[in-house]
């Protein structure tokens, strides 16, 4: 029994952290914002990407982390990725690391593996992902796809079929998110276009596990965003003085932040468990190997609590910042807005709680 990331995973995540500290500053995130659909949310005229960070992650092998070795990847377990995605959250990296590396890559690996083939289109895309191609998925409840404006390809589920499509194959139009770095597009359902990856029950099962992977990585990203918001708030209230004392010395502020910290602390082990079970690990508490249903419950516990933490931590951070936080010039907003989007991505708190409830009570 050892409930902690392996040394290898920790070292990898630490390396990612120092790499991102250099390549993805708040200024870089702000510069990636774009408001081309006529809204007022745009800080800049970016496309929702921070390419130096993305390139460095590709270089390091992060995008190919779950890609089999024969396709140029590192062939590691899914739970190696969660701490890395948490690091991406800590700097609010907008690029679709989780989606490409953690959702699409293992899906394509399954497809490529099922045919027993080491070549073919799915295998080809796997190699391209390991080398930096952006492939995003549209498994959310709404047909909204983040990073869709710059994606090289999309994996979609339409008419009981899983397909991989390229931008020319589909209709899509940009949508404005409250978070100007999301690069959101609304994808219209299309029939017949693109590469069919699976159909029928097989496709549905693949979609289900992909949804769980995506939700888990959203939760990991939220942990990073929340940690960053808490840290920047602690720093701010320790320095900001009002009434002759630091704002952070008021008991009300202390208790707000203690509660924010608690939300993160007690969500984190749920996220770690979810990632572990999705890697085929044993269930910590029941003691046995986890069934698909148990893994899904673990995912739902993780995502519901991470989503709830996002709301509490973001609102607390803003309240403790006061009016200074209420401006687009404060870094805080970059993290808050991302957290609002991810809290409802791949199932919100209520949807995931309902899944746990059905497991417990059958209703």
């Amino acid at each position: 029994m050892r409930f902690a990331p392996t040394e290898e995973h920790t070292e990898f995540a630490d390396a990612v952290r120092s790499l991102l500290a250099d390549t993805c500053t708040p200024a870089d995130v702000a510069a990636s914002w774009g408001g081309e659909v006529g809204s007022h949310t745009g800080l800049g005229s970016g496309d929702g990407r921070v390419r130096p960070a993305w390139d460095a992650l590709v270089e390091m092998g992060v995008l190919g982390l779950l890609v089999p070795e024969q396709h140029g990847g590192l062939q590691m377990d899914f739970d190696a990725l969660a701490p890395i995605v948490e690091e991406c959250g800590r700097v609010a990296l907008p690029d679709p690391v989780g989606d490409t590396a953690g959702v699409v890559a293992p899906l394509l690996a399954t497809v490529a593996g099922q045919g027993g083939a080491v070549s073919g289109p799915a295998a080809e895309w796997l190699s391209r992902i390991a080398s930096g191609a952006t492939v995003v998925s549209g498994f959310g409840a709404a047909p909204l796809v983040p990073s869709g404006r710059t994606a090289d390809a999309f994996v979609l589920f339409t008419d009981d079929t899983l397909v991989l499509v390229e931008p020319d194959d589909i209709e899509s139009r940009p949508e404005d998110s409250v978070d100007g770095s999301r690069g959101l597009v609304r994808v219209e359902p299309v029939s017949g276009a693109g590469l069919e990856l699976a159909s029928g029950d097989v496709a549905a099962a693949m979609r289900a596990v992909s949804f769980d992977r995506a939700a888990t990585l959203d939760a990991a990203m939220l942990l990073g965003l929340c940690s960053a918001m808490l840290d920047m708030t602690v720093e701010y209230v320790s320095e900001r003085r009002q009434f002759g004392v630091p704002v952070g010395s008021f008991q009300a502020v202390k208790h707000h932040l203690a509660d924010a910290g608690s939300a993160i602390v007690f969500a984190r082990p749920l996220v770690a468990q979810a990632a572990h079970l999705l890697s085929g690990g044993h269930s910590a508490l029941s003691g046995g190997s986890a069934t698909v249903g148990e893994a899904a419950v673990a995912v739902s516990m993780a995502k519901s609590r991470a989503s709830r933490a996002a709301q509490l931590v973001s609102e607390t951070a803003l309240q403790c910042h006061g009016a200074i936080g209420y401006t687009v010039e404060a870094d805080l907003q970059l993290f808050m807005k991302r957290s609002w989007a991810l809290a409802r991505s791949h199932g919100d708190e209520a949807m995931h709680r309902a899944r746990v409830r059905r497991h417990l009570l059958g209703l």
Partner: protein
Amino acid sequence: MDLTWSDSEEAFRAECREWLADNVPSGLPSGDTREGFAAHLEWERLLHRDRWAVVSWPEAYGGRDASLWEWLIFEEEYYAAGAPQRITQNGIFLLAPTIFEFGTRAQQDHYLPRMSAAVDLWCQGWSEPNAGSDLAGISSRAVRDDDAGGWRLSGQKTWTTRGAFCTHLFGLFRTDPEAQRHRGLTYFLVPLDADGVTVRGFGRLDGDEGFAEVFLDDVFVPDIPDPEGADEAAMATVMDRGGILGEVNDGWGVAMATTSSERGLTLRSPGRFRATATRLVELASRRAGDPGVSGDMLDAVTEAWIDAESYALHTLSDVTGITEGVSPGARSSYNKVFWSEMDLRLHRAALDLLGPEAELDGPWMKGYQFALSGPIYAGTNEIQRNIIAERVLGLPRK
């Protein structure tokens, strides 16, 4: 207990409703953007033309001498009709009560009609970079200039709502450099086109240019001439250059009257939240069948709706008290905490119903971001809870 409206109140309601139905514009851009502000200004002038801008003011200043009950009815109808936010609200709801209470007759006659007509557009200059929640930490100063007969103002104000679009600022400046904290402050009225004023707009959380920093560098504000025998035109010319409201070094007392309006009844009429609650219930009805919408979301909608009813009834009780001579006083801090957190609950409930579409930059997400400012501005809710504990419940300060 008598929960019926009189015939004249019902007639007033009918008149409001009809006029609003005929005149409310639809789809105005946000008043916190430059182009939106201009569109809102037209609306404000239309309100003024038909005497709906300031219903509770005297007729001489553009009002209808409406009672508090009628004012409540107006607000209810205004928001139910989906009418736009009031870009003039900081003047009308925060400054005007102070002018009514502390201004000279000449100041009232000069400033109030221009305010109700949306000629002068007022923003507040409370906060400074180092004086947010701690308003008494103000360091902007006014230095006496006896030769010129007035004061020279310097310093920086910030988080000034719609400051980039307004024409005038009201705020506190330190006139006695020796005095500490809330002593030695004076309440000034300052035209933003005066020499030495620089205004820089900046983006609020919701992306609108709704905030401004106002820099004052040796801005001259004249003394108000003695009204006895003064020439009316000359008086007006002086007052166009600003002035002091109330007594020198008594600005804190004057300002507290204003912030109490901000927290109390006038700024946040229940109609606004009931209108939001109604839209929320409509949204819930439309989405109730969606697979992503669960029972707990509908419960949250119900709770938020009850909040709005409770707040409305509580206001009726406050207004009853006021009309019978009992001021809510520090109890208005209960209202501030309640409406600001209710507004968040209303918007959170809506975003939850919207699910993955919530992140779209639509009206509910905009409204949520606006609601997030509620617990911060007009005295943070932490400060309000201190006030409730100390001044309503009587807990020891230390």
